[in-house]
């Protein structure tokens, strides 16, 4: 069908009208029923509650006409594995996300609105970080929270920090070295701004060590959590606002991010799931690079210094679904293998289960745990003290469920360059 949707989906109505009408709907024509997506779906492998990606995607879509009758599709975690493995190019996960948005449009749970407020959570928790950390680790409080908003008592929560990344960036001493390689824009995302501050700091320090000037414009949320909860209206507004924010630093600059899932939102999800067709998004989406993808590009061009200190250890690495969906392979694995004496073991597991906010939800917590269990076991068996993963919520899930500290791969690069 039509390749370009020139109708900007800037409202929920437009977003929902898009759902089921354009690119993804057309892609169902490519399904040959081979069932490969069903064999790889991490959710249908562990629960009969979910009818599977082929069923709710290319099959059920032919029976949809505005009215939502198949509520079980909400058990899809939107991990995107189905789209990734489909050899025919069917946008299975996108179809499912759109159908869910239509289904939830008139009865969005308050909980789903709350858990998509990622920036708000950061803003509220940072000033009271010790209290927030205590409260979110307190059983009676979490039990109350579970009853009140149906967020499971054992689900991982974002770790509150006392200082935001932006505050650190503005107040730190300026780097002593003079940039020799040009300028980059850093997109930290909500988690990287408020919770995974250390990852953001280390990314900037590595980029500066390599000789780049790093600009960090004021920036909002990409809207991914809203999108995955079916709030297309809010998500569309968020992502376009973010594009404006990132473009304010200058045209043609490469944008770097250590938030793998937010990068995916900008690269393809906002367009393919919500039908946002806007020049600003197209511009940002083609300029943004995942941090490890960028480092691998440098290495491939012979421009990455490999004077890494040896790190004699073995660590498990898990490639998140939303990184794999970007079609960039597993760049972290290749870059980390440049560090002498470091053995990185690919988890080769499909999914950790969390899928953004899916695994937080009371009714889906057990499913998410079952999805991630083989990964948690692998991580514990490989190294009980340290694991690597590119995206925030996946790290929180792995750490909470395996008890193994889990960090972004940039931490290893940072350490191997002797940066602290």
């Amino acid at each position, binding site marked *: *069908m*039509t390749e370009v949707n020139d109708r900007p989906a800037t409202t929920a109505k437009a977003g929902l*009208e898009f759902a089921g*009408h*354009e690119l993804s*709907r*057309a892609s*169902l*024509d*490519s*399904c*040959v*029923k*081979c069932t490969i997506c069903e064999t790889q779906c991490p959710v249908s492998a562990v629960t*009969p509650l979910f*009818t599977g990606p*082929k*069923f709710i995607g290319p*099959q*059920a*879509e*032919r*029976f*949809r*006409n*505005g*009215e939502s*009758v*198949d*509520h*079980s599709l909400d058990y899809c975690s939107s991990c995107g594995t189905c789209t990734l493995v489909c050899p*025919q190019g069917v946008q299975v996960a996108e179809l499912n996300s759109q159908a869910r948005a239509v289904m939830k449009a008139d009865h969005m749970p308050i909980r789903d609105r709350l858990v998509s407020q990622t920036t708000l959570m950061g803003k509220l928790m940072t000033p009271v970080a010790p209290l927030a950390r205590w409260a979110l680790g307190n059983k009676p409080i979490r039990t109350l929270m579970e009853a009140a908003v149906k967020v499971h008592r054992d689900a991982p929560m974002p770790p509150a920090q006392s200082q935001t990344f932006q505050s650190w960036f503005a107040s730190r001493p300026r780097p002593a070295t003079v940039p020799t390689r040009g300028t980059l824009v850093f997109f930290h995302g909500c988690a990287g701004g408020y919770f995974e501050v250390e990852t953001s700091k280390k990314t900037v320090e590595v980029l500066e060590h390599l000789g780049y000037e790093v600009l960090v414009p004021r920036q909002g949320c990409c809207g991914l959590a809203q999108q995955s909860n079916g709030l297309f209206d809010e998500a569309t507004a968020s992502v376009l606002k973010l594009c404006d924010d990132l473009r304010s630093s200058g045209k043609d600059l490469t944008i770097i991010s250590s938030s793998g899932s937010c990068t995916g939102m900008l690269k393809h999800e906002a367009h393919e799931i919500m039908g946002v067709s806007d020049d600003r998004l197209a511009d940002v989406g083609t300029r943004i690079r995942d941090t490890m993808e960028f480092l691998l590009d440098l290495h491939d061009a012979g421009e990455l210094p490999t004077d890494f200190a040896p790190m004699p250890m073995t660590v498990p690495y898990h490639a998140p679904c939303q990184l794999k969906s970007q079609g960039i392979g597993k760049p972290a694995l290749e870059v980390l293998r440049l560090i002498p004496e470091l053995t990185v073991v690919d988890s080769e597991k499909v999914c950790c289960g969390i899928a953004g906010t899916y695994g937080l939800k009371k009714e889906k917590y057990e499913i998410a745990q079952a999805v991630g269990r083989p990964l948690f076991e692998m991580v514990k068996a490989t190294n009980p003290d340290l694991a690597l993963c590119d995206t925030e919520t996946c790290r929180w899930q792995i750490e909470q469920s395996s008890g193994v500290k889990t960090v972004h791969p940039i931490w290893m690069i940072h350490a191997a360059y002797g940066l602290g």
Partner: protein
Amino acid sequence: MRKLAVDVVVIGGGSTGAGVVRDVAMRGYSTVLVERADLGQGTTGRFHGLLHSGGRYVVSDPLSATECAQENAILSRIQAGAIETTGGYFVCCPGDDPAFADKFLAGAAATGVPAREVSVGEALRNEPRLNPGITRAIEVQDGTVDGWQLVWGAANSARHYGAEILTYHAVTKIDTADGAVTAVHCTDLKRGEDVVIETGFVLNCGGPWAGQIAAMAGAHPVDVVPGRGIMIAMNHRLVNRVVNRCIYPADGDILVPVHTVSIIGTTDVKVDDPDHLAIEPDEVQQMLDAGEVLIPGFRNSRALHAWAGARPLIKDNRVAAADTRHMSRGMAVIDHTERDGLDGMLTIGGGKLTTYRLMAEHIVDAMCDKLGEKRACRTAEEDMPPSGAGKNYVVTHRLEEREHDRFTEQIICECELMSRKMLTDALAAQPNGSFDDLRRQLRLGMGPCQGGFCSMRATGIALETGHIDIERATALLRLFLKNRWLGLWPILYGDQVRQTALDNWIFAGTLDVEHLPPPDPSVRPEPEIEKKTPVAAVMEAGVRS
């Protein structure tokens, strides 16, 4: 030999025959319907699924327009389960004369066809894939109808009133004595048994085959001119309303959303033999071009299946002016008494599926007149099972049903969401049925995989549940695949090629269907109207060699 005796024999199990046998039975006559194949296997099963609002005829044929509008309202009520009240648009496409829309609106007002002009913006909002260059849009009450459910609904209603429905009974001879019909001879094709039905009246509802039937009674030739039309089903609903071009009726000017597919149609080419309908490549291209006018990008969508149907057009110069009493421009009742000196037989031709109930009313009224009896028609007042609740069909129905039974039911046909229970129930109801008989009731194999995955499952279940033996399993599976292939070959391009290649690997490679032991000679394939294409003939030759 089996012997029966009834007041009235209805010949032909399409929509007309089914409507007629219901009407006859409801008026209190004992009656039998005989059909050489399955119900709705001829013209009724080979149309595009449109329940006319009457809009199509407001300019060209005002009487038909009014009849369609009235019958549309009646059928949507009494056969709700077979009909989806989608609504429809007549749109002026780029290059079409926008002034035709004025004629259309005037015609609609004059014929009582509900119609309302809407803004182009509203039409495009409701049907986003429509050609954005349309200049005018008129909303009408077009609907879509499942022809097989319509026919089976009427047949089951007739049974309720005591009628007997004999499918796979081919009429071989019609006896006459002293200028009147006395009996109809048939062969029961499933059992190989002769059946003789003594009767005083035959209602010939053979559609394009009506001439052949009339000839069996020694009537003068009835000049049937079958008009061939081809249709193509696209993989999903590109529109959710019927979309018509707002022009004088022409080829390829309607796109109809029926069940999960949308159907573009149709052509009109005179043919000699309704049993041999080709699907010509240039007509396929003509339909795809026509679709492109309504929906830009139509050609990039996936085509699933093509088929051809024959319109039952009757041209009869022998019809006297007096006979037109029961005729409208769209339908004709031929009285063989005046024409041929033969009492006890009426032939009906023309008409359209939307007016099938009215056609039945006309011919049964004519029969009552000839018999000198007054028995009122009640078919418009009474709901037909199983749609008693009056709830119209909607496309989400099966998805909703599978949502409810998803923990207990296997899905056998994934494309059309047919459960195992639906299949086993249908097998129990039609134990001698072919898989095409089941397909017409269940939509087995009618989705994108065209039987690639469901046909071997259905075969396995039929065997496992004891409905068929291994010989019959082989024969039925092969027949089903062959019939699917006939409709696939003419549209093999784009996405459907990949599916067909995969299906072929499964059946020719993994299952090696072509080299299964030959079926027992006693297992005869059911008569299936052939849709011969030159290439299909070559393929069959290849299979034989």
